[in-house]
């Protein structure tokens, strides 16, 4: 199979360095995740790639009793939406080891650990 550098691959490579890859629109300055092909603000497609530290605060999360296939080997995890500390965007990922909502209060700090081929964007809780 021919191999091209896809938006997903670039996002994954950056995540493996603990960062989130974003597009900054050269026309209007709006920042959005790197998988966007056109700016959601002005519809232009001329972007500057920007790497942001993969650190953010938990906006919401859930802990599921029934996991989709591929995640049933994990005893307990949270699926987390977090707002990046240094960018006006949110991302979501997989955070193992969370057993109850009390383990992860809204506003907790999480950081990107990497991108796991089986479990996707993997997070870890950061104790401040």
């Amino acid at each position: 199979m021919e191999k091209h550098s896809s938006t997903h691959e670039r996002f994954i490579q950056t995540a493996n360095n603990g960062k989130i890859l974003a597009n900054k629109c050269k026309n209007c300055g709006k920042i959005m995740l790197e998988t966007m092909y056109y700016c959601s603000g002005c519809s232009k497609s001329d972007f500057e790639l920007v790497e942001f530290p993969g650190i953010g605060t938990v906006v919401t999360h859930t802990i599921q009793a029934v996991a989709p296939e591929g995640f049933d080997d994990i005893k307990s995890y949270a699926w987390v939406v977090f707002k990046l500390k240094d960018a006006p965007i949110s991302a979501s990922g997989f955070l193992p080891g969370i057993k109850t909502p009390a383990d992860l209060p809204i506003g907790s700090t999480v950081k990107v650990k990497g991108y796991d081929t089986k479990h996707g964007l993997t997070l870890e809780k950061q104790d401040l």
Partner: protein
Amino acid sequence: MVNNVCVLGAGSTKYGKLSESVIELGLDAAKNAIDSAGITPKDIQAGYISNVFGFADKQVHMAPVLMSNLGIPHVPGLTIESACGSGSVMFREAYANVAAGFYDCVLAVGVEKITHAGTTLSTTLFSYCSDFFYEGGNGASFPGLFASIARSYLTTYKATEEDLAHVAVKNHENGLLNPKAHIRKKITVDDVMNSPVVASPLKIYDCCPFSDGASAVILCTEEFAKKVGKNYMKVIGSGRGGSPAAVQSREDITTIPSTIIAAKQAYNMAGVTPKDIDFAEVHDCFTIAEIIDIEDLGFFEKGTGGVAAREGITRRNGEIPINPSGGLKSKGHPIGATGIGQVVEVFEQFTGAAGERTVKDAEIAMTHNFGATGASAAVHIFQKV
């Protein structure tokens, strides 16, 4: 638009764990709708089918198979997929084609067959309806996605898990009166609160079931309906909207933009406001969804949907009855069929076929159905004739 569009006939199979194949279910509902309309298959000029997981029952390209088995193989068919919103999105396409004058009479069938796949596989297949790179691929299930929305809502507004439970109790109360409902069981707030957690903070009674089932309606021009001479209802408003596919990309997780956009279009087209709606069938795949829906549709101020549920305002005899059919929660959620099933409920309400669950003196009603976490939505408004 060239034509006023009507719904002339409607029918559903029972919803639940069913033994028939996806094609048999679709055909059973289609026959019910054709017979209800007082027409024959020869009157049908096009077929619209909504389905999501046909491959799970070894059948895609479903429209020609259904049309062939209805004895009208030369009539064109189209299969449409828009996750859990497939039925209403398909209804809109059928509506638009009749309104535009391409056809005088069409068949719209929504169908799903999934329960044989079991819970884990079904949970996995449903996760493919999310923005998979960001959601399903990171371990989010659909209960999980709505649970994250619920947590955000409960954190933002003065609402409680008990408020969510009141939605479930009310919809089960309505579903008890629906002979075709998947789950006909009276429950209490305590039952909901003590039921097992599926995805925190949602418990099993906050979640709709996986269901099999099919629903069908006949859409036609008003001229055609008058010629046939049977009861019909008018489609007076139709709207479609979209939202960012991934929950993470929404500015406000506690609202669903596609609902607001679609509702605005439908209200404007119908020339009515939320106060004119006598009842609504809304997308309550999870209890939190109904609370957000009734706010986004303009029935209640933002943040007060939970109060409405708690105070009984949305009960069948309340100020604005929501989901008199039992909703997805109790009637069931065969995802390709759900949007059409809502239209069937309105038709039965308006033609005296809803029995004990009839909403008194209703003349204008709404259906609201969305796909995934609201990435796509359609709203329709109907008038009794």
